[in-house]
């Protein structure tokens, strides 16, 4: 096996990946969009399962390829077969891996932050069967476990030492509910990526014309559905 074969290897694994009907012709842009949408949306968006599965699969393959290539480089280092150009290519491949790694890391941790922030709200939601599923199975496990241990913390620190009328954590009696909900009326920055012009209905019933590439600041709830449709991205 020589260097050409090695580089060929990167391509064949990628091709077999692609055969599995990739719906993402621009994986990187889709991942960036998913990450930024999640960062800027006031509520948790549905988990991008297909996208993440594909990214994780390809990342894993590419990482294996890189390991194999390093091994090849090590074995043949003394013979002088390994050119500096080959090394440079591996450096580019490693940088690419790190860039994806970083984006996935941000995406997943952003979601956990939002899940923690409104834990009771999302736990209640997962129990309503008619609601769409936002959480991945891993996130659902996380939210339930985290709620369990944080409840234990509140209980042991002070709740259990309080009069019986006050020992509930998700107390909604009285003036103010102690459960926090995401504020879907918050303003967000949006960019239109729809090729056709469109109108958005504002709260007061007026229509806001949206141009392609146009940039606007609007309330999240009036454009929420266009994020799903892919006509609008948050920025």
């Amino acid at each position, binding site marked *: 096996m020589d260097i050409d074969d090695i580089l060929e290897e990167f391509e064949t694994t990628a091709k077999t990946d692609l055969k599995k009907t990739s719906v993402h012709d621009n994986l990187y842009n889709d991942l960036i969009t998913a990450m930024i949408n999640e960062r800027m949306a006031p509520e948790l968006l549905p988990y991008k399962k297909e996208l993440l599965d594909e990214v994780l699969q390809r990342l894993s393959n590419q990482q294996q390829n890189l390991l194999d290539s390093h091994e090849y480089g090590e074995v043949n280092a003394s013979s002088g077969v390994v050119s500096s150009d080959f090394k440079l290519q591996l*450096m580019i491949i490693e940088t690419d891996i790190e*860039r994806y*790694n970083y984006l996935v890391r941000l995406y997943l941790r952003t979601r956990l932050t939002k899940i923690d922030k409104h834990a009771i709200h999302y736990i209640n939601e997962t129990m309503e069967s008619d609601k769409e599923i936002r959480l991945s199975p891993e996130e659902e*496990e*996380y939210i339930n476990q985290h709620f369990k*241990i944080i409840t234990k*913390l509140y209980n042991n620190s002070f709740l259990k030492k309080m*009069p019986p009328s006050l020992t509930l954590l998700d107390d909604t009696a*009285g003036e*103010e509910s102690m459960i926090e909900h995401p504020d879907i009326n918050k303003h967000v920055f949006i960019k239109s990526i729809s090729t056709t012009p469109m109108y958005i209905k504002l709260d007061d019933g007026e229509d806001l014309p949206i141009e392609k590439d146009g940039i606007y600041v609007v309330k999240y709830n009036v454009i929420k559905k266009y994020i799903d449709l892919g006509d609008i991205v948050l920025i």
Partner: protein
Amino acid sequence: MYGDIANKLILDAKRTSNLSELPLYQTDLVKDILKEIQDLNNDSEYLSSEKELQQDNLSEEQLKINQCQLFVTLLSMRRNKRCLLAYQRLRAEKIVEFSWLNIDPILESSTNNGTTSNGSTANTAKPKSTIHDSNSIYNNYTTQLSLDNLNHAEQEYLKSYQDLILNYKSKFYDIDLSGDLEPPTNIFIDVRVLKDGGEVQTEYGSFNLIKDSQFYVRKSDVDRLIQQGYLEEL
């Protein structure tokens, strides 16, 4: 006045939110607030029973006063509870932050040797360099944790949370979820050798430390050599 002690707790929380570490748990304040809640609870029970018993003997005005007192008492109790929750939530959030760094907390014993920073130098090669830069995204992020400052329930929470994210992370074994949150811009850098040394082995082959020679290398491979003064980044 009722609520004053809880206010102290909130001030402590406000200060804590700007720290990169978690200060000592306010055991006494929390105890005092719980005592106050108990007192308020006794008051409210007394007021309710008085209302029940004397319903017929009290004038309409006296009834109104009773009702008002009861209302304020219940509100004060709930306010105290909110303050306790907010205080504990902030501390829990800081414990969460620290747990994601994947480094060891400072142990009780290390304070004796006069090297309190031991805990943080023994950490795994995580974003050390960016952590101490005041402009970094880790500004205000909890980067140090002394077990001494946690109450017993918090220590237990820390341990359970660490287990919890270990489990979550194991589902994504190709992603370093505790890795740096600064974008990876300079993974490979040009370096110049400042003083002679031996041979350096990396995944990308080996090179010799000969003064004034230059190499293009992976930054994480040479971080130590830069710190030790063998190399400088160009």
